[in-house]
């Protein structure tokens, strides 16, 4: 085989300077040192095209239609618009692969994935993309099938791409975090693995994302980014170890505790007593997590744990950023029935979304267009004051069903009281 084609990369070379690890140096290792000529050529060509982008300040990839046998999505197809100049990376598709819940790996498994990827792809991989997938970046159409066939045999499946249920994400969670109020990884898998058909065969109006955070710190940005955000929380009293509170006050001083813990409480639910113990007004605590974050040895979530469910978060296009809205203020997730109920709400939501959203409209945008109440009625969830910051301010509303609605509220309250 002829010597590989080389390209000058004066601009990219600038990105080999400085202390942070350089992705360009990595590309060059693949170009210069890898034993497989196919990978050398591909890396060289990719460097050439990227340099061309840097020089002209333009991108040169186009989408297309590539998938593996049996699926309709999971691949991000990329065909070069400048493939004649950079032929070895003319086709440079990415496979989106679902990571294990919580993103745990053994080094053995990472090596095995690396071996398979070297055989069939470019040797470039990212843990993880913004949706949460492992991104195996750069292979041909044939390569996507061979690589998928190989890793699918040892436990890996494609994620979502296009208008479908997407790969889900959960935080580090119960595996290593004292704030966790839920089995994040279990919830993630119960939810997303119930919808594998909707992951692999895009047929929804637009994307639908599940994200799970174990506490209101929301480390996976679920409220801001997920159509279906599950957040762990608790409803009994937070646990206070008064001896640890005293130790903390002793170490940091009363002023620090007052300025950084007590006065930062959004609902003034904390009081530092004269004997250096902490009093908590649990009824008015909104579970914001601040005091638990600062004094994590002394304060912990309570024992009556469950989740809050928010629906409709998304990023900019089309109507602007939307946060998720509380749909279920609290539900327990302990028994199999509890989990089935959560999956049922997800199914109702996705069915309603599939039937009612416009093309390219996210769940939150659909709710914005039709109003929250129509959505709640569609998925069979009763209204709750936790869903709003405040009641309506406008008098422009027809209220001739008031008495019946008030009856429903009192009936529901009576039912709850009866247990």
């Amino acid at each position, binding site marked *: 085989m002829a010597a590989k084609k080389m390209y000058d990369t004066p*601009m*990219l070379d*600038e*990105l080999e300077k400085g*202390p*942070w*690890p*350089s*992705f*360009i140096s*990595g590309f060059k290792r693949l170009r210069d040192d890898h034993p497989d000529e196919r990978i050398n050529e591909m*890396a060289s060509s990719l460097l050439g095209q*990227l340099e061309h982008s840097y020089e002209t300040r333009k991108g040169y990839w186009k989408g297309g239609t590539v998938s*593996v046998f*049996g*699926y309709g999505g999971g691949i991000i197809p990329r065909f070069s618009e400048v493939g004649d100049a950079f032929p070895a990376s003319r086709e440079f598709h990415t496979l989106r692969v*679902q*990571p*294990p*819940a*919580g*993103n*745990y*790996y053994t*080094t053995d498994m*990472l*090596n095995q994935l*690396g071996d398979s990827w070297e055989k069939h792809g470019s*040797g470039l*991989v990212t*843990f993880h993309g913004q949706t949460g997938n492992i991104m195996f970046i750069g292979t041909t159409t044939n390569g996507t099938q061979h690589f998928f066939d190989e890793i*699918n*045999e040892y*436990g*890996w*499946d*494609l994620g979502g791409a296009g208008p479908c249920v997407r790969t889900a994400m959960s*935080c580090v969670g119960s595996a*290593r975090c*004292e704030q*966790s109020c839920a089995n994040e990884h279990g919830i993630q*898998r119960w939810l*997303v693995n119930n919808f594998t058909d909707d992951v692999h065969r895009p047929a929804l109006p637009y994307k639908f994302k599940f994200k799970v955070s174990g506490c*209101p710190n*929301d*480390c996976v*940005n679920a*409220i*801001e980014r997920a159509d279906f955000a599950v957040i762990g929380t608790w409803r009994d009293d937070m646990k206070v170890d008064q001896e640890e509170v005293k130790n903390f006050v002793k170490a940091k001083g009363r002023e620090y505790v007052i300025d*950084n813990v007590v006065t*930062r409480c959004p609902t003034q639910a904390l009081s530092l007593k004269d004997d250096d113990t902490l009093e908590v007004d649990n009824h008015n605590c909104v579970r*914001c997590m*601040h005091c638990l*974050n*600062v004094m994590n*040895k002394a304060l912990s979530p309570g024992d009556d744990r469950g989740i809050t469910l928010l629906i409709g978060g998304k*990023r900019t*296009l089309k109507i*602007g950023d939307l*946060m998720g809205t509380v749909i279920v203020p609290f539900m327990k997730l302990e028994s199999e029935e509890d989990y089935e109920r959560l999956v049922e709400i997800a199914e109702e939501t996705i069915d309603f979304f599939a039937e009612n959203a416009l093309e390219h409209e996210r769940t939150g945008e659909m709710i914005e267009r039709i109003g929250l109440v129509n959505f709640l009625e569609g998925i069979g969830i009763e209204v709750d004051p936790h869903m709003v910051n405040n009641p309506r301010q406008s008098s422009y509303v027809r209220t001739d069903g008031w008495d019946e609605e008030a009856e429903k509220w009192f009936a529901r309250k009576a039912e709850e009281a009866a247990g």
Partner: protein
Amino acid sequence: MAYEDMRQPIESGCPDGFQYMHPVMRKNFGLWKFHEHPKPGVLRHVAHSGDEIWTVKAGTQRILDVYSLRKLTEIGEKYGDGYVRFTIRSNIEYMVSDAAKVDPLITALTDAGFIVGGTGNSVAMISHTQGWLHCDIPGTDASGVVKAMMDELVDEFQNCNMPNRVHITTSCCQINCGGQGDIAINVQHTKPPRINHDLVANVCERPSVVARCPVAAIRPAMVNGKASLEVDEKKCICCGACFPPCPPMQINDPEHTKLAIWVGGNHSNARSKPTFQKLVASGIPNNPPRWPEATALVKRILKEYKEGAKDWERINDWIERIGWPRFFEVTGLPFTKYHIDNWRGARNSLNASTHIRF
């Protein structure tokens, strides 16, 4: 290949993480008591059982070549326990049960060129998108911007001495896959798309493109005898939403595609409810290979935040306390008519009070 020879996929979905989890984490799942941050890049978690797990966190280049991946796994095998995870900002975390393994692990990572840090109140690794390397609609690169910026912010990544953590994100188009951040560096287009009318009819599903526009500025039109689309340039907000479904409507431009900086996005419910980021600077040149103008502005904002914020204030908390006028004053950034929102719900962002700081 004939149909019957094709392999049917196993639709196994999301794998169970337990099989790859450190045994101490499996044993103490849901039973952790507290954690400490003994030094930058290191976390010590203690379980109710008394068991400990130590974590060493390191920043990587995110787009890993297999050599870098193997170096990371080799370090995990030789100096760690063979168990790792990746954070949502693409840092690698090594979990070990023996405290004695922490320092050798740090040395090995540092010797191999990885940066240990990113814990506690650090400027975390910038979460980013694909950019010119792989995206079909990017206005800029992602990995390059982040590499150049992290070169300058590496001390803040390693030292963990900001008032609270700082999450920075970048996005290469206004769809904003990078998400929300305390500071976000995002593409901001400034001119309407340039339309290749010869291609529109064959490439684009015209009604879908018309429906995609947030301000109804696109309409079907015959141009030079060909079915095409036209843009009302007075209405156009230059968002680029039409470009993905209709590549002949080129939004990217070497000169007019700029960068903007947004601040105050906060995912956490701690103290205040989660917040979205707000525009503070725009018109920043998209200047490869090292984007010095954008980095200089980010550093300026970080400097003021570090000096002005109280302990535990995220950027949004800090600005909420000092007020936006003071933010523009201390950073020296101009306040322009473009900072005043006119999108739906904008009225909620106006000051309808006499709450004014002097």
